[in-house]
Each structure stands twice: as structure tokens, then as C-alpha cells.
């Protein structure tokens, strides 16, 4: 359990984190989202006691991080995969960490095995690819077998196999009852991984809720219906006071229905003896929902449609 209360961090005049409160519960993967410069990394550093809050508090299972005994056994974190001495081997890096928290050397070999770095454990970390550094960072986070895990952009630099692996590892850790907080810019990835979201913008909390709820609230679900008896179904739905829109999807005429459930549409169709060729719920994407809610909080905007405008001039 991570509890953040009224957390504020100022650097001179800029307010990086502004009266932020949220809590991260165990047993699920919680996504930590926000545009660039929203204060995610600063918040994570304050959770770990690395940066000192201007005001407010962070508690790990009820205690400030600095008061934890053997903290690596309580909280494991990967904030930046490049935080390794380039001339030190992966094994030596993990060994000194293990020693500070009285963890056995055996544990170092275990986590190296877990992340698939056993074969290169004695090579200097400076020669690692970003994907390998990322794996080493994950090994460091797992070292103390902690109940709370925090990852900042963990899939950065990983290839598809690595991305799948890290998604599974996070879900596995959560299912073991651990608290998992993950920040990422890759929303399609987060939509698959996180059950719960903490969304911030300009250092302030925008929303904390379940991922599904977040998406549904921002962009309501619609129902896509295909049938050879379009007119009949349209009439029946109209009679029930249900709104229907015509669209062409994949070159096929389609009815798009909003403001009701697919169950209800199915029952109306069956009552009228209408044959259905498709009856599917179309959810909005996490990306749509996120961009809608954080719109004002984005640091700078690229010009939309700039291609059509500018590119044309030289042709």
C-alpha cells in the first residue's frame, strides 16, 4: 500500500507536483499516467525518499520510506535503467545492493535467472543494450522480493518478446497480492496491463479509478449491429426510443447504437425475428479517454494537419 497525501514539490518557481493525493492498493497493477512533465517521475522519487517533498507526505504501509528497515525487502523500484556503473558487472551491481539489505548472494543469482541475464551476468553493464539494462533494473527491483513494486517506463527499449514478458511479470506480481505501480506513455500497453489508473496532469490528480471505468466515462461505449434486415431492426429500435446511426464499417452497412446495452438490442432483434450478423460492443480506447481528459495539461502541442498544410507547398 502506497499512500500519497497532499504531496507538493516546487523547484524554485515551477510547481512539479501540486497537492497530490492518491493511494495504490495491493493485488492489482496500477497504471500511473500523465503527459510529459506532469510530475510522474518526481512523485516516484519522492515515494522512494530520494527527493524531499516541499510539503505533504508519502507512506509505505503506514511509514515514511526513510523509516523502513531493509527497504529493498519492502519496495522494489526501477526508475532509470541507466543508473548502473558502466564498468561494473551486472552481478557485482546486484551484489552490493543485496549486501546493504542483508540479502543472500544466492538471491542475486535467482533474480538474474528470472530476468534472463545469467549468461551475461559478469559482463560490464555499460555494454548492455537498453533492453538488457531494463532487465537488470527489473532484477534489482525484484532483489529483496518486495511487496511493493514501482516501475517507470519499464517496456522502454524492450522488443516484443520482452514487452510481453514484462506485462506477464507485472500481472503475476499483482496476482500474488503485491502492490504494483507502473508509469508508461504507451497507453495501448497500459490498457492491457493496468486494472486501476492514477492519472495526473501538471502535477495535479486528474482521476483515480478503474481502467474500464476511466475509458467508459470519457468515451461511452457504442454497439455495432449488422443485419440483412436493416430497415426492420431500425424501426424496432426507433419504437423503443433507441438512437441509431448509419455507418459503413469495412465496406459493410452497419448500424451504430448508443445509450443501451447489447443485451437489449439482441432481445429486440430476437422479438422481431431479425437475423443478426454482428452484435458487438465498441469500447473507446484508453488513448481517446486519456487525451480527452489531459488535453489542457499537455506541455506543448504539435500542429495537427501540419502535413496537409505545409507539405503541399513544395509540390
Amino acid at each position, binding site marked *: 500500500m502506497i499512500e500519497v497525501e497532499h504531496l507538493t514539490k516546487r523547484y524554485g518557481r515551477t510547481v512539479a507536483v501540486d497537492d497530490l493525493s492518491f493511494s495504490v492498493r495491493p493485488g492489482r497493477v496500477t497504471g500511473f499516467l500523465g503527459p510529459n512533465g506532469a510530475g510522474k517521475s518526481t512523485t516516484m522519487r519522492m515515494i522512494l*525518499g*530520494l527527493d524531499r517533498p516541499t510539503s505533504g507526505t508519502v507512506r509505505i504501509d503506514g511509514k515514511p520510506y526513510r523509516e523502513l528497515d531493509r527497504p*529493498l525487502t519492502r519496495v522494489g523500484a526501477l526508475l532509470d535503467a541507466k543508473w548502473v*556503473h558502466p564498468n561494473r558487472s551486472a552481478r*557485482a551491481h546486484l551484489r552490493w545492493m543485496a*549486501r546493504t539489505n542483508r540479502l543472500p548472494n544466492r538471491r542475486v543469482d535467482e533474480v538474474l535467472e528470472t530476468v534472463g541475464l545469467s549468461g551475461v551476468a559478469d559482463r560490464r553493464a555499460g555494454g548492455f543494450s537498453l533492453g538488457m539494462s531494463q532487465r537488470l533494473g527489473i532484477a534489482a527491483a525484484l532483489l529483496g522480493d518486495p511487496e511493493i513494486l514501482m516501475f517507470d517506463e519499464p517496456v522502454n527499449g524492450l522488443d516484443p518478446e520482452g514487452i510481453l514478458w514484462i506485462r506477464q511479470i507485472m500481472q503475476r506480481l499483482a496476482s500474488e497480492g503485491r502492490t504494483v505501480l507502473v508509469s508508461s506513455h504507451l497507453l495501448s500497453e497500459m490498457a492491457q496491463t493496468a486494472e486501476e489508473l492514477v492519472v495526473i496532469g501538471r502535477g495535479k490528480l486528474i482521476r483515480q479509478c478503474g481502467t474500464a471505468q476511466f475509458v467508459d466515462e470519457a468515451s461511452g461505449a457504442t454497439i455495432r449491429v449488422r443485419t440483412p434486415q436493416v430497415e426492420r431492426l431500425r424501426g424496432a429500435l426507433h419504437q423503443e426510443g433507441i438512437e441509431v446511426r448509419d455507418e459503413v464499417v469495412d465496406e459493410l452497412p452497419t448500424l451504430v447504437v448508443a445509450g443501451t446495452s447489447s443485451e437489449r438490442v439482441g432481445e429486440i432483434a430476437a422479438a422481431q425475428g431479425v437475423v443478426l450478423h454482428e452484435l458487438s460492443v465498441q469500447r473507446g480506447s484508453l488513448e481517446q479517454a486519456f487525451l480527452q481528459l489531459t488535453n489542457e495539461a499537455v506541455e506543448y502541442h504539435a500542429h495537427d494537419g501540419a502535413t496537409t498544410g505545409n507539405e503541399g507547398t513544395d509540390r
Partner: protein
Amino acid sequence: MSAVNLISAESIKLFSTRSPWWCNLLAMVLPVGFATAAVLSWPTDVPISVTEVQMGYQFGMMLVLVMAALAVTTEYRFGTMRTTFQAVPGRSSALLAKTALVAGVAGLVGLVAALGSLGVASVLHPVSDLGLGTADELRAVLGVAPVFVFSAVIAVAVGLLVRQSAGALALLLVWPMLVEPLVSVIPTVGEHIQQWMPFVAADHFLRGERSMIADPVLSPAMALAYFAAVSVGLLAVALVVARRRDA
């Protein structure tokens, strides 16, 4: 967290990269080399004093300063200081463990360098009858160890305060080499202030009346105590600052 574990962790850090090995090796080899050169250029029939043989300790000290400062600044440079503070959030205990280890290694290096210098010199210059008979001779040889210890403490403290290798090393090399010797140039008060310069005091401890101070206020033993006090004071300031600052 037990001190033994923290020191053991720091020793993994110190000895798992190559540059501390080189620094320490050179810190032992250079003074011995200097002693060799001094003895070989000395007339074979005139006795050379132990103090003269130990003059090269300054080269070793420079390398010890480099080694100790880098042990801190590379941690900032590569972000491992954050990992260290994440593992030991009290910060001071980890930094004290690092200081203890680095200073201990420095002391050992000093001892080897001084005894090595003495040994080489007595083999190459049998006429001198070099030994550890007098108090002056004991200080000149065994005293190198505590001087290296407290030099390392100063370097760790400066590393913690400056956090950047280039800045910390420039300060640590320029200060004892240029600033302290030049203080005496200041009219009237210069010579008096100079003996309160820490590295001048350390030199006074090692070399007694042969040091650059004309009219010392402190006895050699008190000069060492003063040097130690400066280093510990600096470290205390550095620890407080490191605790408060964002990592």
C-alpha cells in the same frame, strides 16, 4: 542495518570497477619510486634522513584524494547514489560506511607506501642506517597512514558536496598543491595563517621541523589532531547536506 554489511557493500562497489585499483596501486608505487630516485641521486657516502626518503608521500596522497573523491562522484554521475539511498534511506550510515572503507584502504595504502619507501631506501643506501629508532622517524613513516586516512575523508566530503568529478578533483588537487603553499605570500599575516592550512598541518606532522612552517604554534601531534578535526568537520557538513538534498 549493520555496519559490517554496509562496509561490505561498499567494498563490492569499490573493487568491482578498475579505476580504484589503478589509483591505489599508483598511490603505493609512486612514493616508492620517488624514494628510489631520491636515494639514487644522493651521494653514496652521505647519510640520507628518513624524512627525505618519505618526501614522495605527496604523490601518493594526490592519488588517494582522486580515488576517494571518485568513489563518491562516480556514484552521482551514474545514478547509483540514488540506488544506494533507496537501499539505505537513512543515507548517513551508507555514506559513513563508504568513508570508513575508503579511508581504511587509504591508510593501508599509506602504510605500504611508507614502509616500501623505507625498505627500498635502506637496501639501496646502506650507509644511512635508516630505521624507526627516533620519534621523528616513526612519525615520518607510520604517520603517512593517518595522513592518508584523513585526506581520504576530506576527499569524500568534497565529493559529496560538489558531486561532479571534474569540480571535486580540481578543488582537491589545486588546494593542497597551489592554494596552501601560496598563502604565505600574503603580507604580514600569510605565514601565520599558513600553518592553519590543513595539508600544511599534515606536512608539519610528518616532517616536523623540516616542514615549511618557520615558527609552528602546534606540536606535530597536535597538527595531526587539527588535520583530523578539519576532515571530520568537513565530513559532518557534507553528511548533513547530503541528507537534505534531493538525490
